[in-house]
């Protein structure tokens, strides 16, 4: 009985969201509003249990590491974001959290640029490695905007566009398959778990 009610609730909300395919309607708006609220409400106890308790409450009240009161007070300055006169105080926790970008400079250079360049600089011993090399170079040239894409240079960057289109097509195909598999999951739920039409 309890499972039937649970399935009915899930099926009603699933159909409410699918109703958007017809047009925007009160059922969809209801489900959309509920999704926002429930998702946020779901995050609150998790943050409390996994972040607030181990990194704020336990160090201060159980381990007596009173120095942690300082970052807690710093975090409270976020609340001044809504104040017209004291809004500037909220900049302190923001900049404190953002300072980590100092580490992202060498990390992004290493992982996104140097590692990729090293992987691109392999011996060109077959047609595939040659194509990968040509594709990488022509796409990089396409994104070099200091020179007009005309003449021979324009033709070279055009090759880059074709490589990108194949890449975007592959990503598109992958995304479609992921979405379709989710759709199949929902249809299976409606026809199997809820209506019992398929086993």
């Amino acid at each position, binding site marked *: 009985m309890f499972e039937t009610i649970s399935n009915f609730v899930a099926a009603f909300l699933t159909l409410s969201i699918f109703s958007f395919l017809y047009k925007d309607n009160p059922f969809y708006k209801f489900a959309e509003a509920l999704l926002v609220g429930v998702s946020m409400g779901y995050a609150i106890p998790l943050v*409390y249990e996994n972040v607030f308790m181990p*990194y704020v409450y336990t160090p201060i009240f159980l381990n007596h590491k009173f120095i942690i009161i300082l*970052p807690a007070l710093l975090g409270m300055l976020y609340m001044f974001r809504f104040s017209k006169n004291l809004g500037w105080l909220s900049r302190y926790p923001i900049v404190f959290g953002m300072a980590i970008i100092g*580490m992202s400079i060498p990390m992004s250079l290493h992982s996104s640029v140097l590692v990729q360049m090293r992987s691109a600089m392999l011996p060109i011993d077959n047609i595939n490695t040659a194509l990968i090399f040509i594709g990488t170079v022509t796409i990089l040239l396409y994104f070099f905007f200091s020179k007009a894409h005309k003449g021979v240079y324009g033709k070279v960057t055009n090759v880059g566009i074709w490589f990108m*289109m194949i890449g975007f097509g592959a990503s598109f195909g992958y995304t479609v398959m992921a979405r379709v598999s989710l759709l199949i999951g929902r249809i299976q739920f409606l026809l199997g778990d809820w209506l019992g039409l398929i086993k």
Partner: protein
Amino acid sequence: MKRQIPLIIIITLGFMFVAHSFIPHKISTDFFDWYQDWVKAVSPFAVSLGIMSLFMVHGTKIKRKISNWQYSVITLAGLVFTAFAGFMWGTQSGTPYMWLFENVQMPMSATMFALLAFYIASAAYKAFRARSAEATVLLIAAIIVMLGQVPLGAMISKWIPESSTWILNVPNLAAKRAIMIGVGLGMTATSLKILLGIERTYLGGGD
């Protein structure tokens, strides 16, 4: 001074982190550990800022009876009830909190993403109608990759899964690699702009 002091903090700490990446000394490691402890203690308050913001936006809509304000009541009720369930009965399996996740949140978010299957199909149709050579290449690559992922592709021809693998491993790899290099350079440039105080929009308006 309301803008300068935060800028000094981010520039000082930021360059200390740049140094930390290159100098694996104990002082540097201790500094990083200290920062991690502190930043974790700061972070839950950022979530409370988000909750306050949500309450203020929807509270104002309800108070002023702005059109569709009834849905704001549902959003806030969903938030309060789910959070209450989590605090009251815990977050373990079998609790009302997990029931809400399994029968309300998860089905709705999965359906939201499933809806995109229809809109992606519509986008593909529009791309095909563009009738340009590039759009055709994109669509052919997409169709081969899609068919290559399902048994139907192999049933049509064994050439389809092989082509799908080739597209993913050769032209797609070249495109992803070049874009990744561009993204890496962009991230580095943006990070440097923030560290050098050129990019300041994150500080917000006002004095």
